[in-house]
């Protein structure tokens, strides 16, 4: 469970100070699917970085379970990123020189998984997203939708507690978007993980149990509701 208390984040741009998050407080229980919406530059990605242990707040606390991500060591943040949290990026962020299979395996490397088990788990993850036969292909040889499936397989191969998705359908056409969202929903239900999706797309947002709107660093919570069918 995430518990954010009075979280603020400011960046310094030359002499100018920019507030990306301002006194944000919210709680996200385990297993919830949350959509975060808002205008560009409103603080969506900054919030996602706080949740993903990629950055620390300027003030306030970000509890993941009992651990405050604002206070733990960099080493512990790295461990949390390796074991508890996975991220799916808008641009897929696959390593261009590695095959789909090898890209998925990169997520298991920091866990110290042996080569054979790594290969087996990566193959199973690719199979679960319907790309078993594409495992030897380079990202450039895959379509956008296929690349995002590989990215999802990479995120889920180590069975994280939290899956963060930053505009996962932003670079996809409508049909592929529907496929990817359906896949995420299916995995969320099957694996019981916490799914937090940053999106501009209201259709995608309506699929979530809960919608957060963030603008000028301030969060508005819609509360838990029944997702659209």
């Amino acid at each position: 469970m995430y518990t954010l208390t009075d979280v603020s984040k400011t960046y310094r741009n030359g002499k100018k100070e920019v507030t990306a998050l301002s006194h944000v407080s919210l709680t996200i229980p385990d297993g919830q699917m949350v959509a975060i919406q808002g205008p560009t530059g409103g603080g969506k990605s900054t919030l996602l970085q706080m949740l993903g242990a990629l950055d620390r707040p300027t003030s306030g606390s970000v509890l993941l379970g009992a651990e405050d991500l604002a206070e733990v060591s960099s080493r512990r943040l790295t461990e949390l990123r390796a074991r508890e949290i996975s991220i799916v990026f808008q641009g897929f962020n696959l390593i261009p020189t590695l095959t789909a299979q090898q890209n998925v395996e990169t997520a298991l490397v920091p866990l110290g998984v042996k080569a054979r088990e790594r290969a087996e788990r990566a193959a199973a993850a690719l199979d679960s997203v319907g790309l078993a036969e594409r495992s030897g292909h380079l990202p450039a040889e895959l379509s956008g939708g296929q690349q995002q499936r590989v990215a999802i397989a990479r995120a889920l191969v180590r069975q994280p507690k939290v899956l963060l998705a930053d505009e996962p359908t932003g670079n996809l056409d409508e049909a592929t978007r529907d496929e990817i969202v359906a896949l995420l929903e299916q995995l969320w239900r099957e694996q019981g993980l916490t799914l937090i999706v940053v999106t501009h797309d209201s259709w995608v947002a309506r699929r979530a149990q809960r919608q957060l709107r963030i603008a000028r660093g301030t969060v508005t919570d819609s509360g838990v509701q029944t997702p659209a069918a």
Partner: protein
Amino acid sequence: MLLTYVRRELRGRLRQTVIVAVGLALAIALVLVVNAASAGVRNAQDDVLESVYGVGTDITVTQAAEPGAGGGRGQFSFGAEDGTTSDDGSTTVATDQLSIARGTMAMSSDVASTISAADGVSDVTATLMLTDQTFSGELPDPGSAPTGPPAGGGGGGGGGFGGGNFDVNSFSVEGITPGATALGPLAGATVADGRGFTTADAGADVALISQSHADSADLSVGSTITLTGTAVTVVGILASDDSATTLSDVYLPIDVAQALSGLTDQVTTVYVQGTSADTVDTAAAAITAALPDATVTTQSDLASGVTGSLSSASSLVQNLGRWLSIAVLAAAFGLAVLFTISGVTRRTRDFGTLKALGWSNGRIVRQVGTESLVQGLIGGVAGLVIGLGGILALNAAGISLSGTTGGAAAATAAAGGGAEGPGAGAFGGTMPGRVGQAASSTVETVLHAPIDVAFIATGVGIALIGGLLAGVIGGWRAARLRPAAALRSLD
């Protein structure tokens, strides 16, 4: 995963990999060739120096001479009792004198024991360098007028004047310690026929002669040579181990040479071997302190006196070659570092993603470092191949170098510090053999650049250092990237 990723990355950016590897390869090849050429030139210099010095000699000690006091003026003195005078007033004269060699000065043989006791000295042997001069012929009546042109005599230096008819011969004679072959003038020689000296030959009227003297004087093992009226038996004929070693014409046990020349307990040159290459300077300093009037010359002193194409090659390799190698190496290292940093910058998103996946800084530094190291290794292997090819080509070219140990320094060092004087004999005869060459010795040698395991190790080591340097700098930059950069680039 590490090696898979390394292999994929290097293949994925093949052009950059090739450029960096080629840069390193050329630099390493140049370093190898320059190192090998430098060693080849050093060896050639050693050959030249050995011709003056003898194999294994680190230091020579001679007696510094005062101007005009040098030995060996080729001058004959005839007393009234010499020769027989005929009815027409002409005098038939035959004389043989064994005197100290031109340009050398005698010193007490006690210096050898003084030198032995000096710090850093491992072995010592002393020699006495002499010249045997014979004059035989007919001198005209001093009161008669010159008639007609001189009738030349045969032999090594024929000449005549005023109706006289005579022969002048000279050859070099060196007194050595019997049994001392590891150090001194015979260190670079082998016995071609007969036998060498043993300690039992001390005091015996026996001689070793050079092959060239045997040929010119028509001598062989068992022949006798008459030196100042004493018959000496030839027991062995010597040949040089290489073209660089110059032998004296005749070698005698040193005590015999001293007795025949009247230079009892006198020596002209002491050959010294240091306990190690590192102690030569210490030994030289100790000898100088013990014998302040002596001239102490080390190999490096002589090397600075070598002239000719060998000297040019040496300075070319030492100066231009070394600096060119350093410049190319620095450029190759710079290239490797710049390309690695540029690669890291291009892969900001990749490294950010890997950090978001939980890759530690150490793992990312290892990844970048290994990529650079492998790149360096490829360059190193290619450089070895190119470099070894270059060395083989250099050797195949058969570059001929000549080195001249000339001028006052070398001549002094070689022959004992004698004063320069008209040493060609009172009648203008020439002085053959080693004595004549002491003033200026030119040795031809072919450059052979050796292939040394140490050079190969150095080449590979440099390549790895280049790769490691680039990897450490690139990895450090990659490690400094914040994981949020992967997401921020999408904002």
